[in-house]
C-alpha cells in the first residue's frame, strides 16, 4: 500500500479509463502540468500512466491520477502546496533550460510587417 492511501484524500473520479482521468484533470484544474510516468509524489508513490501524464493544481489541492490494476484509474485530490510548488519549480526549470538552448529565439524575431511579407521568406 502506498502512502497515498494513508493520507487524507478525496476521490474526484473513480474506476475510469486513464484517458478520461487525464481529461478530467485538464478540465478541472487551475494549472495543469505534465510529467513522465514514474514521477514521484509524496513519500513513495510513483505515478502510473500513459504519457503525457497530467497533474493539476486547484487551490491548495493537487489533482493526480491513481491506477489500480483491478479497478482502473482514479482522480484523487490531496492538499499539498509543497507538491504543487515542486511542479511549478520543475516547469520553471524546463522553461529556463529551453531558453538557454535558444528555444524561444525564433519567437522573439519580429513578425512580417504585412501579409505580403509572409511570402518573401
Amino acid at each position, binding site marked *: 500500500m502506498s502512502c497515498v492511501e494513508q493520507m487524507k484524500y478525496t476521490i474526484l473520479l473513480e474506476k475510469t479509463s*486513464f484517458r478520461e482521468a487525464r481529461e478530467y484533470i485538464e478540465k478541472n484544474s487551475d494549472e495543469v502540468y505534465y510529467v513522465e*510516468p514514474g514521477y514521484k509524489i509524496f513519500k513513495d508513490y*510513483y505515478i*502510473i500512466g500513459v504519457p503525457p501524464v497530467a497533474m493539476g493544481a486547484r487551490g491548495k489541492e493537487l489533482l493526480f491520477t491513481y491506477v489500480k*490494476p*483491478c479497478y482502473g*484509474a482514479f482522480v484523487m485530490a490531496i492538499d499539498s502546496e509543497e507538491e504543487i510548488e515542486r511542479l511549478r519549480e520543475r516547469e520553471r526549470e524546463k522553461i529556463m533550460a529551453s531558453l538557454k538552448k535558444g528555444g524561444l529565439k525564433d519567437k522573439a524575431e519580429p513578425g512580417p510587417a504585412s501579409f505580403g511579407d509572409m511570402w518573401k521568406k
Partner: protein
Amino acid sequence: MTQGKKALLVMGCPEVPVQMSIVLYLSNKLSKAGYDVTAAGTDAAVKLLKVSDPESHYVQKTADLDQIISDVVEKKIDFDLCFVFMHSDAGMTYGATFSAISKARLFAVIFGKNAEELANTVDYPAEKIMAKATHNPNPLKIKVDKVVL
C-alpha cells in the same frame, strides 16, 4: 546467450483465468532459455501464483508490483525483457509506464474478450502478443511460442 539475463513478468488483475496459466508457462519457457525470471503483481496475483506453484518449480522470484516500479524508477534494478499482461485499460496503463521507465525489450501480452480493442490503444513501443482468450489459454500460448527471444 541468455545466461545472466533478466526477465520480468508483470501480472495484471488476476480475474481472467488465462493469465496465471500463461505466466507459469512463459516463466518456465524463459527459465529454460536461461533467463532469471521475476513475476510481479498485486498481493492477490502473487498469492495465486504461489498457491499454483508451491515449490517454485516455474517461478522462482516474485515481487510486489509497486515495489518493482519503485526499484526500476530509482535504477536499483532493470530487466532485459519485460512482459506486461493486460486485459483492461489499467493493464495497458501499466504497460505504458514500463515502456517509459525501463530499458527492457517490452512485450504487451493482450488477452480477454476485448483484446482487439485494447491492442489498438497500445500506442507506445511494445511488441504485441494478442489473442482473444479468456478461459482457454491455447490461443495465447500459440502466440507466445511465436515470439523469438
